[in-house]
């Protein structure tokens, strides 16, 4: 059954080629991409079952002798990440199809959207399955190049501006990754993860520390851990809604996955408690303070994304099996919930024409379904029992209290504060966008406008709100003709991702014990190494 292993990479790549060839027939493009991504979901589900029953699956591509070729390895962690990422990419694809059909837009180059999206999926699959560091690098590059195209889709001025930041930052991190690869090969003579985990221990402590910090820096940029996170809130919000959703859900988590992998497999002797826990604390607190300050839903969600990466780094920094289990569960929870929230933000933008909170108001009576979806999602993200966000946070807090050092306890407190501030930021956004009446929105907007010196009002472009907006909004309230039907496919896809996040709450028991088994595997590097290398090949 190990022959299934290359399929999560191959199928999307084949799909990318097919959709590119079928660029004149959007209907066939949609059919091909949905079929292939559904296939990847099915394969990922089989892989989860296989690895859970029979241990890690390994395939040496091309039948090279064992330590020479490129290996694909799927252990419990990889399989789980594959399953959840393929589910999310499939649902987001459905959402984007709904959006493309609804917009019926000839300006957006939809013909290249599907191939690029499938290449992105292939890159993500390759990153999760990579059995050596260089293949991981290639996986990263594949998904990054697809993301460069997607983030600048259409080439509008704002997207080019935001995309430039994103691209330059990621080019720099790729260069760092290459330097790390050269250094590691120079030091250990291999880039195979299993072999590295055996050889790195023989090197001097100083050398391994340099290698570890280099890799950590690379992955921390991808995962948007605090001092290296400034690029994310700048670049994500401008992309099309489904693109932002899939980036927010998956790309940062690929970085988190790589950090988990290197910390457990390569550098299990050097957990760097202090560094990681401080980074986690600062990521959580500074991220969420940024979110509280934002007045645009998409930007606010980008900041909560950065902030909640801190929870996963917290679990990794504890370096106990309980901590890793908590981090893995949190990754799964956060992929679904962050994607759902960005999809809903996309729906709000479609529906109300803006995601700026100063322009929104009174959406609840117009679209109660959207209000309920957003409500469920923000409760889940903030961690209200009995939803999965609560369970993930409880697991992490428990692991932190078990460790019991002052720093770990500080992190627990920081986590609780972050969770409360998340609730505050999102509840504020929800009540402004959905709960207050349009009249209240107008009154507060006018009041805000009156606070400002008239001379300043003359330079109106500095304010989100303009007089013409007020007039138009007032007309809309009078006429009550602002009721726009939500495109059914888009709403269904967003609802399905929300349902997926609820499903994670329902099956949290088995899922958490799976995460614990996975963390137990990782705390013994021999499980991975024995599966990959036969004794004589070490």
């Amino acid at each position, binding site marked *: 059954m190990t022959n299934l292993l290359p399929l999560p990479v191959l199928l999307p790549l084949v799909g990318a080629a097919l959709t590119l060839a079928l660029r004149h027939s959007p209907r066939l493009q949609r059919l091909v991409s949905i079929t292939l991504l559904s296939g990847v979901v099915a394969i990922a589900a089989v892989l989860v079952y296989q690895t859970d029953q029979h241990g890690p699956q390994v395939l040496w591509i091309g039948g*090279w*002798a064992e*330590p*020479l070729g490129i290996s694909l390895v799927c252990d419990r962690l990889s399989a789980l990440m594959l399953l959840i990422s393929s589910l999310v990419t499939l649902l987001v694809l459905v959402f984007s199809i709904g959006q493309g059909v609804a917009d019926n837009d000839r300006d957006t180059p939809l013909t290249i959207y599907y191939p690029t999206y499938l290449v992105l999926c292939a890159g993500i699959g390759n990153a999760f399955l990579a059995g050596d560091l*260089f293949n991981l690098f*290639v996986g990263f*590059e594949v998904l990054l*190049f697809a993301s*460069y*195209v997607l983030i*600048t889709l259409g*080439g509008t*001025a*704002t997207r*080019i*501006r*935001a*995309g*430039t*930041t994103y*691209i*330059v930052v990621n*080019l*720099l991190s*790729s*260069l760092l990754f*290459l*330097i790390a*690869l*050269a*250094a590691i*090969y*120079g030091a250990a*003579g*291999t*880039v195979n993860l299993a072999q590295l985990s055996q050889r790195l221990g023989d090197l001097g402590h100083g050398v391994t520390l340099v290698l570890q910090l280099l890799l950590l820096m690379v992955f921390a940029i991808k995962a948007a851990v605090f001092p290296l996170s400034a690029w994310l809130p*700048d670049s994500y919000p401008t992309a099309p809604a489904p693109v932002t959703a899939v980036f927010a859900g998956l790309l940062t988590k690929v970085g988190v996955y790589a950090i988990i992998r290197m910390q457990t497999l390569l550098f299990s002797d050097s957990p760097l408690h202090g560094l990681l826990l401080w980074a986690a604390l600062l990521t959580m607190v500074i991220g969420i303070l*940024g979110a509280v*300050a*934002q007045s645009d839903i998409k*930007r606010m969600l980008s900041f909560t994304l950065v902030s909640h990466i801190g929870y996963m780094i917290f679990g990794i920094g504890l370096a106990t099996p309980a901590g890793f289990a908590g981090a893995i569960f949190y990754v799964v929870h956060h992929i679904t919930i962050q994607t759902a929230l960005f999809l809903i933000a996309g729906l709000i933008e479609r529906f109300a024409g803006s995601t700026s909170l100063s322009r929104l108001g009174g959406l609840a009576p117009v679209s109660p379904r959207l209000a309920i979806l957003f409500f469920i999602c923000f409760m889940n993200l903030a961690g209200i029992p009995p939803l999965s966000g609560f369970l993930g946070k409880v697991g992490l807090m428990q692991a932190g209290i078990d460790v019991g050092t002052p720093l770990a306890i500080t992190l627990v407190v920081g986590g609780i504060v972050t969770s409360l501030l998340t609730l505050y930021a999102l509840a504020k956004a929800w009540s402004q966008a959905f709960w207050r009446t349009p009249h209240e929105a107008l009154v507060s907007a006018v009041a805000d406008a009156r*606070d*400002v*010196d008239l001379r*300043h009002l003359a330079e109106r472009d*500095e304010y989100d709100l303009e007089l013409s907006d007020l007039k138009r909004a007032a007309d809309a309230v009078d006429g009550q003709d602002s009721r726009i039907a939500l495109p059914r496919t888009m709403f269904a896809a967003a609802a399905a991702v929300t349902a997926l996040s609820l499903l994670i709450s329902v099956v949290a028991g088995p899922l958490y014990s799976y995460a614990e088994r996975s963390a137990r595997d990782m705390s013994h590097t021999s499980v991975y190494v024995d599966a990959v290398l036969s004794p004589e090949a070490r």
Partner: protein
Amino acid sequence: MTRSTTLAVSETANNTAAPNLVLILVCGVLVAAGIYLILERSLSRVLLGVVLASNGISVLFLVVSGRAGGAPIIGVTSTDKMSDPLPQAMVLTAIVITLATVGFVLALAYRQWQLSNSDDVQDDIEDAKIQRLAERDRTSQTYDADAESTTRSDEAATEDEDELEEGA
């Protein structure tokens, strides 16, 4: 056959004890110059920086591949005189990726130039907004720190400070 190749690889990997100083210096200079250019504003200079730095890193791979040797083809070179083929394969991949990067970033810079007549990396709009507010705060003529007043412009000034903090 594979057994002997394995041995060759591990032997050459062990031969990195005395790296070539010239190559290390070349690598260092290229990467340093590259980083300097990446810090520039203009996107085309950033691109040149990326190219320089990635060439420097290719040289770094030459350093770690150990002693120079013959072509690593079995039957052509004896295994103890081969150079290590793996870093060369990695460099090849890296060169291909850099090529794609150059193509994409050039297109990006061209589009930027089409849109704004320059290829400078622009500030974030939100940042620019906060910066404008800050500038206005400094030059505000109605604001007098000595005067005890609660005029609207004072309120506006404190609002601006709030927004500054938000941006940070």
